């Protein structure tokens, strides 16, 4: 390791424990995700949308923020991200099966639509890109509260930035444009992470936009833009740390384009053989972020093979238990469909 770590590579300061936690989160997400595919093949669940291949982006991002406190407005591929915030595989399994007490929505939303107030994890819809201008609104609120003395700038118990994720295809939406523009005009503490996996379902990048990189769009808004290798969790962490510091210090918003690979069809409803070759997919698998990060940790001696196997065993056990509990849990009571249409007057709200 470098004896004098550069300021722009904060990952060099990560402790072995922190590095192993990152690996653990990526692994846990992967094993949970894989189980969902098995359950789908078994006909036990109707739908799954996967984050396989995106784990490094998400864990690198999550570990760079004040987890559970900074606002996170995610999208449907963000399993690894939300696990890093405190959501559990059990929570996820409950959503797959649509069971009573499901964390995000009481099983009202499809799986992978996370929400947990207790972690400042904001509910999102399936309508792509809607979260971007809303996340700008969360960031606006942070700035507003500071400017008006509602919170102190150095109050670490309060959110100090808002992060949001979406796919490269979703940046074609007007919603994205308008959200980024606010972030620029008001120098908001917003970090927008575009997980560029080169496809929007079947539509490849070059039919989505006529530029080489989504990060090029940052200049249209006066925000900082950067492209990062999203298969490298430490590169992602470094990019995020810089963005987070910028946000915390009131220096404005960052657009991070994280190039990564979608290692599965778009969702369990999709068959990607019609639009991408098996060779291309095999090539993508060579960039599997978990395998490569394992190599790094093993190579650096941060993690031993025994530890790696322990992680595997532990992940399996957690996933097995989660699956079992979710499968045997009761469904919600049908009368609850009338709950939570309107918040009661005098409801206290806002965090």
């Amino acid at each position: 390791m470098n004896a004098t770590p550069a300021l722009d590579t904060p990952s060099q300061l990560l402790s072995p424990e922190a590095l192993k936690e990152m690996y653990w989160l990526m692994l846990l997400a992967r094993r949970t995700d894989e189980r969902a595919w098995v359950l789908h093949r078994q006909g036990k669940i109707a739908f799954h949308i996967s984050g396989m291949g995106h784990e490094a982006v998400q864990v690198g991002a999550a570990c760079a923020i004040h987890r559970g406190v900074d606002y996170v407005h995610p999208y449907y591929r963000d399993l690894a991200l939300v696990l890093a915030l405190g959501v559990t595989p059990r929570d996820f399994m409950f959503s797959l099966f649509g069971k009573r007490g499901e964390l995000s929505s009481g099983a009202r939303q499809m799986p992978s639509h996370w929400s947990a107030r207790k972690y400042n994890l904001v509910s999102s819809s399936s309508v792509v890109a809607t979260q971007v201008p809303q996340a700008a609104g969360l960031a606006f609120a942070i700035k507003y509260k500071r400017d008006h003395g509602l919170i102190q700038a150095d109050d670490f118990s309060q959110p100090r930035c808002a992060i949001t994720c979406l796919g490269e295809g979703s940046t074609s939406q007007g919603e994205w444009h308008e959200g980024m523009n606010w972030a620029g005009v008001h120098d908001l503490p917003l970090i927008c992470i575009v997980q560029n996996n080169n496809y929007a379902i079947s539509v490849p990048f070059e039919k989505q936009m006529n530029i080489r990189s989504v990060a090029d769009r940052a200049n249209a808004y006066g925000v900082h833009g950067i492209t990062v290798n999203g298969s490298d969790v430490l590169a992602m962490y470094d990019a995020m740390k810089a963005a987070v510091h910028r946000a915390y210090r009131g220096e404005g918003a960052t657009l991070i384009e994280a190039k990564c690979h979608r290692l599965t069809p778009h969702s369990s409803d999709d068959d990607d053989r019609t639009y991408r070759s098996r060779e291309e997919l095999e090539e993508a698998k060579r960039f599997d972020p978990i395998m490569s990060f394992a190599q790094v940790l093993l190579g650096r001696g941060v993690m031993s093979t025994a530890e790696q196997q322990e992680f595997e065993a532990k992940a399996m056990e957690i996933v097995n238990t989660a699956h079992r509990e979710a499968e045997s849990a009761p469904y919600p009571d049908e009368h609850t469909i009338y709950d939570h249409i309107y918040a009661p007057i005098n409801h206290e709200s806002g965090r």
Partner: protein
Amino acid sequence: MPEMTLIDALREGMDEELARDPRVFITGEDVGKRGGVFRATMGLFEKYGEGRLVDSPLAELSIVAIGIGAALAGLRPICEIQFADFIHPAFNQIVNEAAKFYYRSAGQWNVPMVIRAPYGGGIGGGLYHSQSVEAFFCHVPGLKVVIPSTPADAKGLLKSAVRDPNPVLIFEPKKGYRSIKGDVPTGEYTTPIGPARIAREGSDLSVYAYGMMVHYCEKAAEQVAREDGIQCEVIDLRTLLPVDKETILQSFKKTGKALIVYEDNLTLGYGSEVSAILSDEGFNYMDAPIKRLAGADVPAVPFSHPLQEAFMINPEKIAHAIRELAAY
């Protein structure tokens, strides 16, 4: 009680809420220095500064989405859409997002925000400065929709809306911004979101209306009372969603005849729902066809004066419809 115009009452309501709660802010196009194109926020910029009267970029969906995000974070945004006609770009954020947050998070995340928009015709605004858009939003559970017709209600409903933990849309009859005047209580008060208001008592037939049309209906009611001895009950619906079925039905049980007046175009306008409620739950009291008097079923209000007049409902048309119905 001082007399005030509708717009002055709205402004006073915003002023008081800004003073009361530092979490309240206003955003929208030209709401700052300019004080709003209708002057609804005039003077507030000078009083509260640009941090709380936030000129937005020219982009409605983001005005609403920033409001949603800020509301989620505990602020109390008042979002101004310059004309109701320009709310359509924000439709997705209102209908798919604001309306569904509380439900989709099973009560974890609520959206305490207000969206204000001037609506309605008769001001020479043509297709895109005259629209009535309430019907689109009254179809969406999770939203509340209010339309004040008096200055007192305008202020009281606005203050309730700011304090409501849900997204509340206030559509303001812009033709009446300055022409509608009325007494406004001094001191702190709110008007509850929910109940309709009986604007005029009567036993011969029930006239349901909101916004500018309430005034035209009252005028028509006076005329037919004077000229024909017909006693109309005029109901100012005020809160359109949730629907105040109780008040709607109560009046109908007394009169057995209903005329629903709205300036939006007829088909699937708000009056369709009022009618459907009456012919179901009020069937036993029905003495006549349930009548709707509404704007023409054309794509929008035309500009040229005679065309606009042909589109618009006025007291004469209402009086005519009342007489026909009373004679049934």
